[in-house]
């Protein structure tokens, strides 16, 4: 009986109670401690991108695209400026890892026109640059798998396959060899021996033809 009575008394005040709940929830939003939200893409998408092997591009594929003069390739060298000046891939842009978020370089990385291919000596710098950029939601980013070391081992100085290896290995080898030549290595300068033969002046024999005796051709 008393329980029913209590419920009844509560129900009489139901609008006040609901209004109070609304008020408390709204005040809760104001009073909740604010935190800075993560910038860039959602964490689960980010992890999915990191796990995906599609973010790597092999040296062979890169060489093929460079040889075919693919206009959508934009190479970015993430090493230091000194290393860049010593050696860099053709037409690469030097953006050292520490300057990656520099405003001046933003136009190179944050765009959707080129396929940006990041490389360094190994994967490490390029991977770090890739992770930072991808977190910010930049598009079309790739990492050169193995970096310049792999580039040297495959394109510049490819290993001759064993005799027992399949034909594909030899095809790849010859492609690498040819690509290496395109990038200016492995061209054997064969000495071309030019033999200049001295011509002996030959004596010109001028034969004087004797006038043949005219055969009488008949008279008038």
């Amino acid at each position, binding site marked *: 009986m008393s329980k029913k009575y209590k419920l009844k008394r509560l129900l009489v005040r139901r609008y006040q109670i609901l*209004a109070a709940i*609304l*008020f408390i*929830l*709204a005040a809760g*939003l*104001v009073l*909740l401690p604010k935190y800075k*939200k993560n910038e860039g893409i*959602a964490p689960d998408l980010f992890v999915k991108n990191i796990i995906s092997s599609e973010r790597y591009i092999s040296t062979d594929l890169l060489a093929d695209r460079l040889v075919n003069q693919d206009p959508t390739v934009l190479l970015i060298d993430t090493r230091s400026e000194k290393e860049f000046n010593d050696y860099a891939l053709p037409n690469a842009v030097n953006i050292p890892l520490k300057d990656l978020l520099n405003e001046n370089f933003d136009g190179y990385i944050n765009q959707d026109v080129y396929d940006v291919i990041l490389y360094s000596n190994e994967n490490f710098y390029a991977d770090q640059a890739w992770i930072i950029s991808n977190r910010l939601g930049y598009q079309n980013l790739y990492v050169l798998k193995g970096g310049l070391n792999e580039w040297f081992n495959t394109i510049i100085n490819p290993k001759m396959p064993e005799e027992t290896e399949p034909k594909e290995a030899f095809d790849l080898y010859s492609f690498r060899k040819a690509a290496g030549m395109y990038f200016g290595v492995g061209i054997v300068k064969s000495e071309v021996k030019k033999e200049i033969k001295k011509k002996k002046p030959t004596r010109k024999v001028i034969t004087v033809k004797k006038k043949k005796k005219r055969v009488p051709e008949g008279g008038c």
Partner: protein
Amino acid sequence: MGPLIPNGIIPEDWNYIIAILIGFAFGYILEASGFSSSRKLAGQFYGYDFAVLKVFFTSAVVAVIGLYYMDYLNFLDISMLFVQPTYLWAAIIGGMIMGVGFLAGGFCPGTSLCAVAIGKIDGIVFTIGLVIGIFIFSESFSALEPLFESSNLGNITLVDTLGVSPYWIIFIFTIIALIAFVFSDWVRSKVKKVFY
């Protein structure tokens, strides 16, 4: 995580099916709140029934509080939600026409369909008028187009205009709602009761 469809958690194809289901729920709530009665709706203007104000204000406040809690807990990215662009003068004039129609006809477009669904004759007449209005608007659209497309302020919200934290706006909005509820009850107690 959310919004579910733009983030691909629910396929895009489900969009219309979900819209229809929400439409059913909306129609049910309208009917259950008694909004298919034009007297109840008009009571808003005469001061003997404030159900419209209470239902719509409550739903708006509950929705906005819920959305911002979900945003706070990272269930939803509030910046991905669509904000209807503001055409200032078109909205003011359209709102006035809508208000006059609401008061004169006793229905708003949604509730008139609700009334048609339960077979109310005034609702059917109102809906025919609605269709005629749509026809006239469509035919004279070229004349109305400058007004229709002018003063576009873009997808702005109060947060952008006032530069205040959204949480404060929600809090103040909630208090305004609560005051409006108390005030409407007070008005109703002063007005002569109408039985309908």
